């Protein structure tokens, strides 16, 4: 079983490991996450060459407040694994995994956009779905859905050209 192999291999590096609804889930501290994720990708026992998805869940009122969730898939061994990284609300950051999977680039940008979680070492951390002058992070549970956003100031594209993208 995948979850037993993971427990043996990583031991105290992982916080919890369980199978729920037939799906394998582990959680890792954000300090250990880069090493564990790299090992999951590179070691032939796991070979998780696919970062299927990355998102976060806001557990407002609970500590740590956020959970960053990675959905991994191994094509060679046909495994799926969910890796969760708890992140405190006051100091929300995790290390970016763009170096491991290129698909992380856009999903991490989206996660930053929606939750305001900083992905350290990300090459291009900008908003992706919302516009640059949007205030707040909409998928946070304390985002005021009944309020309006401030109007965007008009800019002259000739006098003030848009900043270079990279």
């Amino acid at each position, binding site marked *: 079983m995948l979850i037993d192999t993971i427990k043996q291999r990583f031991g105290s590096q992982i916080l919890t490991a369980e199978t729920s609804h037939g799906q394998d889930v582990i959680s890792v501290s954000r300090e250990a996450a880069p090493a564990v994720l790299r090992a999951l990708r590179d070691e032939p026992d796991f070979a998780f060459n696919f970062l*299927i*998805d990355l998102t976060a869940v806001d557990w407002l009122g609970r500590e740590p407040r956020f959970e960053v969730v990675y*959905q991994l898939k191994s094509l060679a061994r046909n495994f*799926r694994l969910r890796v969760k990284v708890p992140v405190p609300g006051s100091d929300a950051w995790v290390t970016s995994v763009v170096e491991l999977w290129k698909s992380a680039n856009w999903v991490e940008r989206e996660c930053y956009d929606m939750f305001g979680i900083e992905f350290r070492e990300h090459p291009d951390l900008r908003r*992706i779905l919302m516009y640059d002058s949007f205030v707040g992070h909409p998928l946070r549970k304390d985002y005021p859905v009944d309020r309006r956003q401030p109007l965007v100031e008009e800019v002259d594209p000739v006098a003030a050209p848009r900043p270079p993208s990279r």
Partner: protein
Amino acid sequence: MALPARWAKKIEASDPADEIMELQMGPSHPASHGTIKFNLKLDGERIVDCDVEVGYLHRAFEKMTEQGTWTQVFPYTDRLNYASPCINNVAFALAVEKLIGIETPDRCKYVRTIMSEVSRITDHLTCLGMAAGEVGAQTVMFYMLEARELLYDLVEAVTGARLTVTWCRVGGITRDLPDDFGERIKVAFKNLEAVLDDCDKLLSRNRVFIDRMSGIGRMSREDAVSYGLTGPLLRAAGVSYDVRKADPYLVYDRMDFEVPTGEQGDNYDRFNVRFQEMYQSKRIIEQAMRQIPAGPVNIDDHRYILPPKERVYNSIEGLMNHFKIIMEGIKVPAGEVYQAVEGGNGELGFYVVSDGSGRPYRVRVRPPCFFGMGALNQMLIGRMIADIITTFGMINMIGGECDR
């Protein structure tokens, strides 16, 4: 008329021969079907850099799902990939059912499979027809749209709507197949086959079409996997990954079908993979129609499924049952589940989190074309402006799904 001084100064200062030109293409460009902006840096016609801007169709899908009951999410899912709404419905229903731990009757699974495959064909017809139209093959576009219309008629016969179907429920479906569905599907497929034959003749050995598609937008296997591409985009690169085979859901494990793959990973292979997949979907539907058992389509558990109307109108228990499900929503136990299905564009995943109340705590969609758009930059750099159109067309970005 003299130019304003600030522009004239700019033009004087620049030498056009060695300048990198910045061009913003979109967000509403006639040659790209989808609201998207390309911030291009061009050396002549060659693309030096391409920053893809998405988000113009963002409708806060994930936030909206948190405001209502679980059943109220279904209408929103129709509007994700609107070229194949049935697949989105099925995917969300499967995710919630897995979280509750219920399994629908066999007939329901077959009906869902059949409708998913009908939707896959409409999705591919939309993608291929539009892509062909954009490179000048208008005839193919109209042929394919006509064929799609035949399939929309099938969807309409089952769900009552062409696009916004809202047809699945947790634990079942709202409508079973009509009695004459077997006949209808035979007629539709006969016409579909004729259209596909014509399109094949028009395109597959058409010099202009091949020159526009072959070798363009190429992506290696390693890159395709690293960028998280799935569906036709990944299979065109030679990786035979299909959720229907890798993690079978519904009744796909009882079906005999092949997963077409390409070799080059270019636009022509993507086109071919999609084209072949339509024949495979047809095969699946024909098998399913032969195998489909009689019986109920909904689970017999009125904590999740609305009671029949006779009971609602004639008994207080039935009325209360109806009222509770509509007003409070079905109760989904606390927990979380990731459910993937094979959508028209690739792996469509729903990650649903429940806190045990009647409302979703978090619903996350894994939109397949979002990842394709993330890789577009890599596919385009070094190519010509005209290649944007075919590459973008083959990714089949559906704004509703990409931007949610």
